[in-house]
């Protein structure tokens, strides 16, 4: 290992192929959009499917972001994350049902007010639950993956069963707030209003997260902590507190994702979080464990691919995600944007 005395950064010397390899994950989503367009052939169908794929992807991303960060920071894998999705959905939808008058009124302001209240309630409850979950379930098993998986699965079972105890054993059907029903027509394509809203919320959240990570000290601490937590502590930051904060925020985001998913499906079940976790895990794996950007790209790909395939070859849609995961892992065994671990 010898170092050249000149101080040129190595990046400028990167050949084109290497730079392309670095940028590849970012390019995959536009590539998928174009391939989808060519395969589908009909612009209005393509637009409809794309919006619904993006909406789905955004919701999955919201659920996945907390999970991947929690792993990146403390090497903790939380199989109980899905419980926050379910709890968020039940709390949020209870608010929507409780304020039925507002939800059914043909007023955008009242409708959005209901949704906002539902989201706030869901995030508050799941954030608190996340805090308790971290203290009671996760904290005693730091550093032991096997036990982590076991106890967090146990936590998932218990919380799911408690949902049954509180809200009863059956699924709950409900209607979306009045102004979020129906679709708008755009270039001959019918775009569901709610999906557009979901895309916007997802984008805003992603941009906000990026800003936090790039522009704030806490964001820097989290990014640095994912790479080398020991060094962050040696500089004088209490990583443990940061981790608890991230765990709470991630749980609250899962709750938000749960409300959004519930409003999307117009039915909620205690097992919905567990079902969503499968997509969440796929997204986190193909994105690269610990990488928020990777999870974002992975989520969009999963959403888009599932919708395109469902249109082109419905039978294949069931296994399209597994196929995607297999392909990505063959290409990059650590996922698209693996986090550099200093240890």
């Amino acid at each position, binding site marked *: *290992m*010898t*170092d*050249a*005395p000149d*101080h*040129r*950064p*190595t*990046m400028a010397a990167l050949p084109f192929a290497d730079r392309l390899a670095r940028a590849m994950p970012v390019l995959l989503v536009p590539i998928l959009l174009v391939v989808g367009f060519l395969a589908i052939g009909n612009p209005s169908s393509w637009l409809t499917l794309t919006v619904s794929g993006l909406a789905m992807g955004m919701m999955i991303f919201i659920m996945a972001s907390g999970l991947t960060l929690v792993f990146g920071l403390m090497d903790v894998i939380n199989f109980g994350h899905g419980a926050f999705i379910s709890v968020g959905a039940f709390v949020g939808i209870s608010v929507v049902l409780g304020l039925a008058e507002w939800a059914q009124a043909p007023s955008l302001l009242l409708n959005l007010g209901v949704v906002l209240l539902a989201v706030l309630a869901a995030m508050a409850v799941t954030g608190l639950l996340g805090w308790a979950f971290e203290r009671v379930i996760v904290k005693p098993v730091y550093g032991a993956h096997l036990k982590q998986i076991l106890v967090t699965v146990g936590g998932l079972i218990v919380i799911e069963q408690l949902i049954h105890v509180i809200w009863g054993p059956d699924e709950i059907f409900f209607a979306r707030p009045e102004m979020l029903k129906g679709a708008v027509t755009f270039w001959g394509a019918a775009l569901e209003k709610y999906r557009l809203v979901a895309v916007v919320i997802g984008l805003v959240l992603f941009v906000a997260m990026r800003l936090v990570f790039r522009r704030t*000290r806490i964001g*820097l*601490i989290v*990014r*640095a902590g*994912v*790479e*080398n937590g*020991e*060094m*962050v*502590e*040696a*500089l*004088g*930051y*209490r*990583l443990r507190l940061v981790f608890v904060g991230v765990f709470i925020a991630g749980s609250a985001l899962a709750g938000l994702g749960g409300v959004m998913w519930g409003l999307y499906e117009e039915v909620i079940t205690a097992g919905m979080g567990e079902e969503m976790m499968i997509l969440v895990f796929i997204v986190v794996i193909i994105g690269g464990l610990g990488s928020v950007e990777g999870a974002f790209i992975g989520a969009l790909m999963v959403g888009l691919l599932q919708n395109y395939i469902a249109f082109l070859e419905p039978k294949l849609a069931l296994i399209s995600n597994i196929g995607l995961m297999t392909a990505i892992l063959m290409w990059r065994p650590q996922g698209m944007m693996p*986090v*550099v671990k*200093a240890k």
Partner: protein
Amino acid sequence: MSDPILRLQGVHTDIAQYHILHGVDLEVPRAAVTMLLGRNGVGKTTTLRTIIGHWPARAGTIIYDGADITGVKTPDRARAGIGYVPEDMGIFSDLTVEENMTLAAVSGPLEPTRRDRIFAAFPPLRTFWTSPAGTLSGGQKQMLTIARAMAEERKLYLIDEPTKGLAPAIVSTMAAALRELKTMGASILLVEQNFAVAKALGDHAAVMDDGRIVWTGEMAELAADAALQDRLMGLSMEGGR
């Protein structure tokens, strides 16, 4: 050596089931450079990691600046004024040089005077201020680690092999920077394999073997006595590359 900045008394450290430190007694005087020397694998890195708190001491006490910090957590040791530069440098390669420095300035934004002093010591850091630290060369990364240590007023620096694998030109830059750190009034505990550097920088020296301190004294005394060096450290020390 009255009132040292750091005193270790009978420190034992285990890593998993391995017993690495067997009762280390060490004093680090104020405003001086103390070299921690010895063969590979005798516990130098473990000693530094125990002082910063990455590995807990199973027995013994660590007194820093008059206070017992044996049970104190790493972040609080750092906040009390201990700076640590690990052997693997601990650079956040995903962050830019600027972001690395921002994080290093724990108590607030990096002061402009400090930043200018760092730029003067390490000109390349100014050039690559906004580049990801992972794209720097090995020597530049090592400059960043020292620069990071200088971003904050620390009373004691623990520095692990800062010249490892560096080209001679950069080794001298590094030595100059460490000297500047000392003139700023800091105390330094430095692990170094390059004996020429150790000789040039060190005021005091402590030699380890098999998890214990086996010799302490003035660096000049050790440097002058080839037989002593040979007995304490064998062939692993190099006479300066």
